[in-house]
């Protein structure tokens, strides 16, 4: 179980002022699937980075299975079972897909096992296993490899930051199956940041973050109708005026 207690984060902006990016967020994640959604720039990725230890919150605590992990490094959190698939996957020079998946699994794995994780995310393993993880891979391919690294880790808490972004429709259905399988095999909680209704639909709990604040939290039955109803009305007022 993951517990966030009064998490706030502010950063210095370029013109010297401080910007409050996360404001007093308290949240418990114990369900199979929890989805975080909300407008662009709302603070979702920042929150995921706070959980993974990439960003240190200005105040507040993070509790994982009863242990306060607020002061732990990225590595220590990873070793305690936190995995994170980035919104923008990182490119390397010389490190291959096989290398990355092997590192993720934390042990020596054979080609066939590495290929299995790739196949799960819909990549024809043979074509990819020896490719370098660099910008010669397409956006969707990088994204799927990123997801495969989290599958290979198989930890109790997995964070996915917009896993569906750039992934084609055909694979999208499989992606949902991937998450379901993942839970069946490993248990634990899967936290997915997403803007996609179909992903929100599988969530046991939906968290809406807007303007750095936790604006709504509840089951999909409670949250979804409201979210979908609102769509269209949140557009920038000047834009709407011009359209009218």
């Amino acid at each position, binding site marked *: 179980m993951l517990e966030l207690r009064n998490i706030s984060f502010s950063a210095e902006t370029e013109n010297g002022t401080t910007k409050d990016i996360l404001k007093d967020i308290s949240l418990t994640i114990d369900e199979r699937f929890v989805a975080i959604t909300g407008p662009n720039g709302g603070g979702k990725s920042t929150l995921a980075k706070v959980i*993974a230890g*990439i960003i240190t919150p200005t105040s507040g605590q993070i509790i994982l299975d009863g242990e306060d992990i607020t002061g732990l*490094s*990225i*590595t220590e959190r*990873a*070793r305690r079972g*936190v*995995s*994170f698939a*980035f919104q923008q996957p*990182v490119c*390397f*020079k*010389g*490190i*291959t897909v096989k*290398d*990355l998946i092997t*590192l*993720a699994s*934390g042990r020596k794995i054979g080609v066939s096992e590495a290929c299995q994780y790739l196949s799960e995310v819909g990549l024809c393993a043979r074509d990819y296993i020896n490719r370098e993880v660099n910008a010669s891979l397409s956006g969707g391919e990088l994204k799927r490899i990123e997801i495969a*690294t989290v599958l290979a*880790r198989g930890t109790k808490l997995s964070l996915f930051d917009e896993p569906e972004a750039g992934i084609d429709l055909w694979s999208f259905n499989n992606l949902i199956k991937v998450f379901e399988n993942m839970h069946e095999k490993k248990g634990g909680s899967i936290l997915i940041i997403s803007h996609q209704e179909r992903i929100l639909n599988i969530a046991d709990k939906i968290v809406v973050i807007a303007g750095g604040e936790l604006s709504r939290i509840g089951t999909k039955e409670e949250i979804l109708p409201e979210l979908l109803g609102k769509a269209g009305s949140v557009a920038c007022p000047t834009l709407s005026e011009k359209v009218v």
Partner: protein
Amino acid sequence: MIDEIQKNLLREVADLDSLPVGAYNIRANGEKAARETTENIDIVTKEDKNGIDIIIKPFTKNESVHIPVIISESGLKEVVYNDFHIGEGANVVIIAGCGIHNCGTQSSEHSGIHSFYVGKNATVRYVEKHYGSGDGTGENIMNPTTEIYMEEGSHMEMETTQIKGINSTVRHTTAKLGAGATLIVKEKIMTHGTQLAETDFVVDLDGDGSSTNVISRSVAKDKSHQIFKSNIRGNASCHGHTECDAIIMDDATVAAIPEITANHIDASLIHEAAIGKIAGEQLIKLMTLGLDEKEAEEQIVSGFLK
């Protein structure tokens, strides 16, 4: 006779656990230790100076030549001239390499001067590894010079690697390419401690349709210093590309000094150079997989130099 230390050096520089197949010449502590020739490949000791002539008959196919040099005697200094005559249409692999084990106090020094005469339409893959070991205070110094002359339609790939144990190296490579000839150079260097590595490439693209690609990847650690110089001169209708990509760590310093000169309207030349520390996001990504910072650095460096 070859002892344990020398065997280890051979393994490092030539991946050899036993005597190689095909033609070879092993030079140990300044003397010929073993030699084998084949019907198509002759190796002849030079009369006027230190070194050998390697003569490869025209149209020799799929043969290899190993010419490792090993030094385990502290304080040995040598200059060796090796000339490779590669006949028309031949296709060969040449594996050179120099290993120094120095456990004494004097510096050991090997300067190999290699000349390649690559015949018309011949294909050569030249692999060279430099390696130093030993716990003495004596320095391991290697100053290789490579001169390459490529005839029409010939193709050469040169892979050089220096990963460990060489205190000081200054490498000069010059090449002249005839019509339709191609030269590809892949250099990998890692320096640590207070080591110095300097490389200097001058490639003349003299023939129409000639092309070259010079790629250097290096990692400079601790207080080491590296200098990369390259000058590609397009003297005909040709393509030239050079790329230097360096990672700096700790207090190391790296200089990249590129030069491209077009002396012909149809010469097309590109230089790319990048120097920087390991990208923070790469470290972070690997740390989210459970590696600590040091392990993440090692993975990134070894991938980079692979």
